[in-house]
């Protein structure tokens, strides 16, 4: 029993990371049609910025620095690299591919290829007893952060003018412009949001895995892609549900079926969802 609880909570922690990466990816894709391979870079930038800043300030504040760095990177990427290629979807993908390759190499040259120990706030070191299981406290940090972001995103989408524009733009971007709205401003905003969430995920991944390396972003990104497709592109609740599904499946099968089996199951789940609902869970 206690193993199951531990696995479930750890799985939810992983789900939190997936959700943070996938939600931004999904919104960017849903609104702007950009498959952003550089999204993993935003994550790594956030993680390394936090790692760097933690020398001068408490980790909690350093995480905010990381998020700011993620936002700055995302906005710059959108304005300088993505925007000039507006509507040329394939070229946009290509540019983000180039960026992800060059970006990882850049991080490697600055911070080295080896993993660096990541600073952890002291209050995540303990364990919390839940139903007889001893759960490391950092799991709850991850889950709490993701919940917070989920609620904030939902409120943004539901109650703000830009949220309205984003929701409408995901459905039909052209029609939004035909109502007299400059939808490209919303693109930048969505990139910024995605950059923030990814950078936060980067810091949290650092705390969770206790190290950070240039490749961290890339490996999380692949599962985030899977989450986006399963959840339905452009849907934040879809991403949330799919993140939980994918992470729990992965966690449990990896434990009971041997390492790697869970990852394979996740891909099988993707295939099943595609055959059953090609547009993802969120869209009937």
């Amino acid at each position, binding site marked *: 029993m206690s193993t199951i609880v531990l696995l479930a909570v750890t799985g939810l922690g992983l789900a939190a990371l997936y959700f943070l990466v996938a939600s931004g990816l999904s919104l960017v894709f849903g609104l702007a049609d950009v498959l952003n391979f550089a999204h993993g870079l935003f994550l790594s930038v956030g993680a390394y910025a936090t790692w760097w800043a933690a020398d001068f300030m408490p980790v909690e504040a350093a995480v905010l620095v990381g998020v700011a760095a993620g936002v700055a990177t995302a906005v710059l990427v959108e304005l300088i690299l993505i925007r000039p290629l507006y509507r040329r979807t394939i070229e946009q993908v290509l540019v983000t591919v180039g960026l*992800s390759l060059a970006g990882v190499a850049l991080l490697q040259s600055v911070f080295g290829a080896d993993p660096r120990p990541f600073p952890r706030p002291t209050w995540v070191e303990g364990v919390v007893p839940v139903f007889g299981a001893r759960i490391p406290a950092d799991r709850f940090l991850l889950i709490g952060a993701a919940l917070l972001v989920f609620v904030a995103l939902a409120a943004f989408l539901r109650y703000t003018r830009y949220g309205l524009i984003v929701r409408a733009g995901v459905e039909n971007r052209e029609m939004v412009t035909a109502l007299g709205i400059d939808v490209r401003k919303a693109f930048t905003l969505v990139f910024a949001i995605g950059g923030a969430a990814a950078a936060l995920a980067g810091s949290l991944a650092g705390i969770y895995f206790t190290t950070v390396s240039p490749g961290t972003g890339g490996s999380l990104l692949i599962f985030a892609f899977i989450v986006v497709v399963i959840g339905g592109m452009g849907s934040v609740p879809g991403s949330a549900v799919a993140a939980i599904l994918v992470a729990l499946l992965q966690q449990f099968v990896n434990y009971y079926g041997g390492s790697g089996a869970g990852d394979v199951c996740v891909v099988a789940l993707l295939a099943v969802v*595609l055959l059953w609902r090609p547009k993802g869970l969120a869209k009937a």
Partner: protein
Amino acid sequence: MRRWLPWGLALVLALLPFGQAFNAPGTLNLLALCLVFAGLAAGYDLLFGRTGLLSFGHALYFAIGAYLTVILMNHGFALPVAALLAILSGVVVAALLGAVALRVDGIAFSMVTLAFAQVGAIIVARDPGGLTGGEEGATIAKGMPDALVGVVNTVNLYWLALAYLVVVLVVLHRVGRSPAGRVLSAIRDDARRVGVLGLSPYRYKLMSFVLAGALAALGGTVYVLVVGGASPHLASSDLTLTLLVMVVLGGPGSRFGPALGGALFTFLDYQLTDYATDLPGPLAQPMFVLGVVFILAVYFFPGGLARIGVTLPGWLRRPARQEA
């Protein structure tokens, strides 16, 4: 005349090892590798440049060809049998996964192929039954034909790689000129119109996917012979991304562009790795340099090397022209 030019070029490449400057085993090995990747990139272009399918999972078929060849040879199969089985496996896997992945379009297809290929990477990393060797990779321990062993026979490996490239290019040329090839380029330009003609884009896309998978698996076989073994990098998504970079640099959809891009990229990658370590900062990282070059190429040289004769003069003329 134009018809014979490619064959003339192939002949020159075939005779290259007789030149003093090229016959050092190290050089020949690098050139062989360049030729393998030239063939791989050209095969990948069947999907990207000619059918308009952006697959992020091409490494899977390359890895299948490479690993199965090594594994089967190490289990006592003769090279031809091992190669044949490896390629057949590539075909079967491509058919199965392609049939699912092609149910979605565009970018979703890209993501799905990426996910499927990830399974290959995971299996390779897990080293089931000690077959793939995990991080270490797998080396060919036995069954290597005498003609391919030893420093003096490096030239044979070179010719083998060249033969692979020629096979790929001939297949692509054949396909391109066949009615099916014309359907493929119609799909690339506008899949809906093909549907209107009463043809099923799905079947043609799948055909293209399977053929590209077979060519990649064959490439994997040739690769392990040239290099002597397989490493987990072959199955990684990064490998597919580099194939994409090669194709885009060379010129997607063009006849020789992708092959040229593949050869050049591989060459530069190795050269930069050797010489760039003294360069300051990120310049020491080949991937940084190549990634940046790639981004610049996407912006300023659409159509890659194959169209540089058009794009470069355009850029050179531009400053002189007044804004209209």
